């Protein structure tokens, strides 16, 4: 059975008073361990699709099933917990919390789950070392470069070993070399940890390097 399935999802948003239907009766299956890229024009609704997939945004109609369970039929607290345990997000901007150090930022999902501080910090430190930032654990986000911050964000997404990693143009703000480093990390994560990953990107080369490619256009998702 598919890990993530989307059934008849509709979603629209309003722009200047006009309704734009970005998802029209979208149905899709993503299996465990897949590495999927999603491409599409600006404004086609890639981010919206990813948000619906990640339970950040509720669809107007339709269902998102995780392991056969409809996630939007859960209540707020259950959805929040589902998001916390099952899904890791990486956004175009790093969105680290500015008041906290890199280490605290990485450990944040574990702290939200009210795990003990010491082991959470220990694992967060290990992850930071793995993404090559062992020397910057006590720096605040303001003191990190864009690439470094994005690597911290990736470490944060992985700290609870989620089943699904959703990345929304993770290298959109980075120079090509730094971006390639992030891509490599994503591929490693998928291969080594077996985490299912969906990566939204503009980057055709990156998309082509992924085993499965999806294209979003006209409210429909198709295999590309």
């Amino acid at each position, binding site marked *: 059975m598919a890990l993530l399935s989307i059934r008849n999802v509709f979603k629209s948003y309003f722009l200047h008073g006009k309704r734009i239907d970005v998802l029209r009766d979208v149905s899709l299956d993503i299996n465990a361990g897949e590495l999927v890229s999603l491409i599409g024009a600006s404004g086609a609704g890639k981010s919206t699709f990813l*948000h619906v997939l990640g339970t950040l945004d509720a669809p107007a109609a339709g269902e998102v099933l995780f392991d056969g369970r409809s996630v939007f039929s859960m209540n707020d607290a259950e959805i929040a917990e589902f998001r916390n345990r099952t899904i890791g997000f990486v956004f175009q901007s790093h*969105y680290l919390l500015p008041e906290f150090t890199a280490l605290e930022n990485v450990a944040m999902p574990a702290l939200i789950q009210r795990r003990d501080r010491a082991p959470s910090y220990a694992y967060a430190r290990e992850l930071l070392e793995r993404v090559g930032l062992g020397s910057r654990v006590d720096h605040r986000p303001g003191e990190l470069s864009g690439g470094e911050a994005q690597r911290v964000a990736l470490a944060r997404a992985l700290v609870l070993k989620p089943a699904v990693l959703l990345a929304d143009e993770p290298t959109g703000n980075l120079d090509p070399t730094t971006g390639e480093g992030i891509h490599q990390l994503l591929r490693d994560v998928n291969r080594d940890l077996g985490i299912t990953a969906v990566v939204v990107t503009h980057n055709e080369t990156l998309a082509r390097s992924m085993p499965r490619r999806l294209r979003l256009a006209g409210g429909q998702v198709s295999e590309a």
Partner: protein
Amino acid sequence: MHPAERQTDYRWPLLWAGALVALVGAILLGVAISESEAWAEVAGALGLSFVGWGGLVQSFDAGALALGAQTASAVAGPKALIGGTLVWLAGWGLIAAGIRRAPASGEGPSPAAGAPLYPRLARYRDFYWSTLGAYGGGILLAELALLLLQTVLSSGVPSDLGGAARESSGGLSLPPTIAFAIAFIISMGVAFASGFVGASRAQRLSFPEATIGVFYLGLPVPILLSLMERVPSLQLALGYRLREVTYVAGLIGRPELAYWLVFAALVLALVLGINTGFIAAGSGRVDLRLGFELFVARRHVAVFRPSLLLGALAVLMFGIIPPLIVYFIIRGAEAAVERTRVKSLGLADPLAAASAQHRMKLHEQSPTMMMTALSVGGVGVGVMALIIVLSVMSGFEADLQQKILGTNAHAVVSRYAGDLPDYDKVMTQVKRVPGVVGQTPFIINQVMIASEGNVDGVIIKGIDPKTVGSVTDLPQNILPGGDLGHLEQPAKILPSSAVEDGDKKDAEEEDPIIGKPSKPAKPTVLPGIIIGRELAASLRVVVGDRVNVVSPLGTELGPSGPIPKSRAFRVAGVFYSGMYEYDSKFVYILLKEAQDFFAVKGATGIELKVADIDDARRIANQVVRVLGGYPYRARDWGEMNKNLFSALRLEKLVMGIILSIIIIVAAGLIVATVIMLVLEKRKEISVLKALGVPDGGIVKIFLAEGLQIGVAGGVLGLFSGLAWCLFIEKVGIKLDPEVYYIPALPVRIEPVQTALAVVIAVLVTYLASIYPALKASSVEPVEGLKAE
């Protein structure tokens, strides 16, 4: 909170029109039902009709009238009655029509119509009757619990009919204030619990239910209670059973004020319960843990930093200007030192210098930080002012109470009419009542007192010098030179002239008319009298001088008809109680002398001293019960000085309320600060939600931020307030003793009152941060995550 949930459509024109029609109907009903003018007077003042209670209240009146005189229903025209009811109901019908579900969208079905609906939307309901029941029933239950507990705890089970008081059978007999405290805490708990249960079951705040519940189920009780004060028929019906309640309410001066304050407190408890219930369970399950939220909140508003706390404390203690000057001097010096260092560093290592400069910039305060400091200061000022003013007023009250109780007894036993001829017997009976620690008989009357130069009207009291000390401070108040014991041994009073007579030659030469030495004066022994210091000054007498006491009542028949009874006394002592009223208006003589003078058998009454002055009322009642009730009666000091103390307490309460406005203003600051924080942190809120913090968690974070400000401000206010009180106490602020009869501003720090000031401040800040916190939780995750 979710846009999808706004389904109720309020049509305001209909609502207003409905309210107006209902009001007209209520007035019609009122006119129809009741001829009593009390309603016309009262209903308008209370604005009852606006909440729709006017009609019901008026029907109460009708009931009361019908009980009293059956003619009432005959007077009301049945047509007007029916008409009024119909109009009233029609008004409510209009209001009901104004509140309804939004009509379905006019557009045709979208292609999504066939797909399963977003399930949470499908489950949503507008209005929960059960929640309304929980809130309204909760507040009503809390009120009834308060009334019942207060009555039962302080006087036992109330007897059914207004017959004789048979409270002695069973039931607790706690002092009324303690009974009130217990009943109040329990009913606050009930209100909180029902709010909590209602909100956590509904999983939303449900303001409509709360408003309706409070208005329609909570309001009638305080309305009835306040009406009771003004409407005689209600007072007859309810007053007897609720007299413990009215007594406690009357302690603060205006009972109505007390009812409404308690009601407001109960509503507050309900709101707190609703809010806590929503936060705990609003997003699906009860979760009261706070560790993570506090962790985040502490970073967002770093209130508990030594520099901020010390700065705010300095401002509270020394005013704004001096600490500001010191601050600028320190900052200026720091910056100068840093700049020199950076400059010298710049020559050697430009990169290090640049980063040092960067750090200097970071050091500067952000606007939110400034707002936070201001809010902390605002709350602090409010709490400080509250503590200082209330402590000074308590000081005045304590001073007054001490002086009054030093001169007056805690309770007085007497008969409704006539004297107590058998006061010995009564005293032996009274002695058995637990809590009575002293008693003395007395006779009281009003007389004129005349010295050679002056005359004054005074209250004369016949006392028993042996026992008077067990009740009042009179023996301690006698100024040096006089002696209370001399009342019983008048021969020992040295006439003041005798001092001059010390050298007899003067006296011998002094009688020029007769030309021979006057009698080598052995002055007649006169009974002693004790007078107050002010009276002594105005009569210009000292110890040993002779005064005449004239009673207009007991007349003697003289040659030219009845003349007022007059008797000479010698001043045996002068007392100083510290109360101008007493020092200028009271004189004391021996009980026996008074019995003779006023032809009283026995005594006017017996003065009692009790172990606990707050319990005086209950003990006084018990004394009456031991004596067998009528014709004996006992009044306690609170009853005897009701005007003075209730005025004082009312003044204190009003001061408290006025000063709380400072805290409310500070709460406004907190709202602004937390809203600024929410706006500033929108992105962070979205990220936290994406990381899996539920709505409740976000609410908790921002509530904790507001609470931190409140707690910091409250603690600072507490410290500075107490420091100021100690300063006033130790150093003293001089008062003109001629005006205030007290040399320095009195201060009395009452722990309960002080704690209450802090608790109120913290509660208000908690309430103030509810709205911004809810705002914060309603930030949709995708809103803040849109790429810039």
